[in-house]
Structures are given as C-alpha cells and as structure tokens.
C-alpha cells in the first residue's frame, strides 16, 4: 500500500510537469493547427536561463526559484520570436507541411545554437538547489517539499489558465481564433496578435515546467527538451490535442503510467508502456480521451 501511494505521488508530480509542457503544444495546435516541435526546446531555453540567473538571485539574497520569472520572460520572447520570424511568414506562403518542417528545423536550430554558445556548450550543467530539501510524513507516505510545491504550482497554473480562456476577453478571443479565424476577424479580433499571445503564454508555461523538472533532476543540457517534449506532446495527443483540459489529463495519465510501470514492472519498460498506451488509446479513440470527432452542423 505504501509503495502504491508513493508511486501515485511520483506519477502525479511527473504528470503535472508533462501537463504544463503539453499545454504549450495544445494551445499552439489549437490556434494554428501546427505541432510546434520547437516547444520542447523552449524548456531547455528556460533551463539555461535559470542556470545563469539563479546564482545572481542567491547572491542578492533571494530564493533561487525566483529565477523562473526571468525564464518565463525569456521563453515567452523566444516563443513569440519563433512565431514572428519563422512560423508566420511560412503560414502566409506555404502549406501545413512547410510549417511542420519549419517547426522541426526550429527545434534543431535551437538545440544546435545552444551547443554553439560558449557559455552553454555540449556538457550538462548542474543547477543549484531549487526548493528546500526534505519533506514530511503523511501517514506512512513521505511527501517531499519539491513534490508538494510542484503539485500545488501546477494545479494553480492550470486553474488560472483555464479561467483565463473561459472568463477573460483575451481568452475568449483565443478560443474564437482557434475555432474560426475569418469569423474572429469579423468580430474585430486581431488574429495575428492573438496567435502571438498564445505563443507567449504556451512558451512561458514551458519555463515553469523547466523549474519543476530541475527541482527534481537538477541537470540542464541542450537536448533535455527532446524526450520531455515528446512525452508532453504524446500527453497532448492522448488527452485530445487542441483541448486544454485534455493536455492536463493526458499529462497526468502519462506520468502515472510511467511511474507505475517503473515501480511495478521495470524502469526500462516505462517508455515502452507510455507509447503503447498512446497507440491503444488512439486506436480506440482517434481524437484522444477528451477529443470529439465533432459533427458540427452547418
């Protein structure tokens, strides 16, 4: 029983990191039907930003995790820059396939650029301690502070994001643009700046995910976003890509599958199971768990 709860908590923690990243994939996909392959690399951008900023924070007597604010800003700028410089021109002139290739190129570009920057280079860097060590006992289950903070922050971020899309003027504009760009324009919505905002928010979330990830695995390297990004993408598809609660659910499911496989079967089987689950779910429900193959009336 003890192992079960411990595994559950590890799965939820991992899952909420996947969910934060998956939200970025799903928001961008929802609004421009593009799989932003570079999104995983935004995690890396956030990671390195914190590596450089955290020592400054500590020197100023501030907690290291405040470095995430700088990472959010940098990631949002990189995300918006990617949209402005690469995706928007391609969207205007090319096809969906051109856009997809551009996204893959952007991902490889960021990874290689990072390696070429002398201050970053090919070798991993170790991060400072982010949250306090230790934890507390909940019955017989040990709760690490890192875990609690990860769960709480992710929960809050997701609630705020959901409320933002449902209740605010800009959030509604985002939903309109994702449903129908021409109709959104007729309502007076500036479609391009709404897309830009979506990139900014989605990429900012990647920075928060980077913080949670580093709190657990305090190491940063140029390809750190590759597998993490892929699993988050899988989460988004599993939950129903384009659907915000789907990304949250998908992330949690993938996290749980991974942690339960690791604890009850074998850690080497974890990724195999993650992708197996994806295939099985998509065979049964091609649009993902929360996805609907909507037959919208005309």
């Amino acid at each position, binding site marked *: 029983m003890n192992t079960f709860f411990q595994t559950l908590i590890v799965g939820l923690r991992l899952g909420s990191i996947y969910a934060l990243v998956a939200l970025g994939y799903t928001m961008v996909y929802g609004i421009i039907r593009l799989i932003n392959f570079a999104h995983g690399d935004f995690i890396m951008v956030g990671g390195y930003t914190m590596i450089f900023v955290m020592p400054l924070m500590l020197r100023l007597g501030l907690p290291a995790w405040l470095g995430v604010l700088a990472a959010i800003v940098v990631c949002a700028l990189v995300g918006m820059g990617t949209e402005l410089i690469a995706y928007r021109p391609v969207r205007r002139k090319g096809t969906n396939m051109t856009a997809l290739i551009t996204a893959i190129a952007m991902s490889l570009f960021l990874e290689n650029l990072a390696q070429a920057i002398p201050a970053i280079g090919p070798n991993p860097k170790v991060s400072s301690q982010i949250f306090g060590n230790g934890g507390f006992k909940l019955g017989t289950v040990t709760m690490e502070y890192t875990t609690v903070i990860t769960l709480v922050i992710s929960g809050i971020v997701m609630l705020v994001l959901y409320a933002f899309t449902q209740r605010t*003027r800009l959030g*509604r504009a985002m939903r309109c643009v994702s*449903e129908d760009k021409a*109709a959104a324009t007729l309502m007076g919505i500036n479609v391009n700046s709404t897309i830009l905002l979506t990139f900014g928010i989605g990429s900012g979330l990647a920075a928060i995910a980077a913080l949670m990830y580093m709190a657990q695995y305090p190491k940063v390297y140029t390809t750190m976003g590759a597998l993490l990004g892929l699993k988050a993408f899988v989460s988004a598809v599993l939950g129903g890509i384009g659907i915000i609660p789907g990304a949250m659910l998908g992330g949690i499911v993938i996290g749980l599958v991974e942690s339960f496989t690791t604890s009850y079967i074998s850690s080497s089987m974890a990724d195999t199971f993650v992708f197996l689950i994806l295939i099985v779910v998509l065979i049964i429900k091609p649009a993902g768990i929360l996805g609907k193959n*909507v037959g919208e009336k005309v």
Partner: protein
Amino acid sequence: MLEVNNLNVFYGAIHALKGISLTVGDGELVSLIGANGAGKTTTLHAISGLLPIASGSILLDGKDLQKVPSHKIISLGLAHVPEGRHVFARMTVEENLRMGAYIQRDQKSIQKNLDKVYEYFPRLKERWKQLAGTLSGGEQQMLATGRALMTDPTIVLMDEPSMGLSPLLVKEIFSIIETLHRNGITILLVEQNAKMALAVSDRAYVLETGTISMSGKAEELANDDRVRKAYLGA
C-alpha cells in the same frame, strides 16, 4: 455610404471579380443576386478585408477600407454575417453574442444590445446556454445575424441568410431583414433566392461570372424578362 469602384479580385490565376462597381446609400436595402460561383461572396469578403484586392477601391463613408486592417472594419460600423453562418460552435449562444460585441467595453451598452437581439430572436433567448454547434441551421442563422447586431452597426452585409433553410424559416429571416431595414440599418444582401431578395430590396445588382450585368430598382428587375428567366424561374 458604401461605394465599390472598379473592383478586381483574383484567386491565383482565377479572375473572380472583373471590375465591379456598386453603391449602397444610407438606409438602403440593396441586394446582389447571381448564380452560384458568380462572385457574390468574394465581393463581400473584399469589402470586409478578408480578401486582398488587386485593384479598385472600396469606400465606406468616404473612408478607403484598403487602409484599414480587416479587424478594424467593424469599428467603422460595418458588420458582416458570413455565408454558412460561421458561429463559434464550441461557445454558447450568449458567448457568441458577446463576441459580437468584442470591440465594445461598455457593459451597459453590451447588455442593451443583448436585450435587443433577444427581442428580435426570442428563440435565442430560450437557448442562451446551449452550445452554438448544437443549434439547428435556422437558429444558427439567427445567431450569426444577432451577433452582427451586437455593435449597433450602421451597415450590415448578409451573405445568403436563407441558404439551406425551410420555407418557413426563410420567411422568418426575411421578415427580420425587413425589420432591420425599417429600423434604418443599411443592408447589402447577397442571395441566390432572387425572388425573396428582390421583393424586400430597394435596388439590386445582378452579378454574372465576376461582372455586373444588370442593376436598377428591385421592382423593375423583378419584372425584367432576362432576370425572370435566369433567376426567378419564370
């Protein structure tokens, strides 16, 4: 109020509008009729800035719409009810209507317009919480029309409002169009249902493969032999 001069629009190599000109005066109800593929939707899209134009000019109260970004055109008092409704399917009826007032910030006037739209379309009020994607075609048309009225527009472009509706609903939609006209709203109406359109309009233009072939008083066109043969099935 609206003045289109020598408008040319291309889709790649397809010359969809070949130098058309038309005007809609203050308070007028003008219809643009023509067969499928004649270029009616293209004309409205060009006016609303959804399509780039190759040459010509579009003036709204003397203002060159080419110089206005497409999402700003609604602020000039021009609303567009697009062909095929284009309601936001995953939003509720009321959310759709509120999106119609996206450019407005004054909650009081939004509420006033919401009440006005519910008065025009009591059916929408009954279904205010329903997702727009689950409405019937006629209800979606009412919603798209109501949404366009949420900004108190001075001119409304309507693209095939009767398309795919039962005869009863077609009558209902046309009676709403007449009411709007009576209330002083300027309307440019695109219709394949030429008979109904001519019956309610002041003037009309006939569009044939990208060119205006006839224009004049709606009554006169309705009695014109060529129009009767080609569009009124007489």
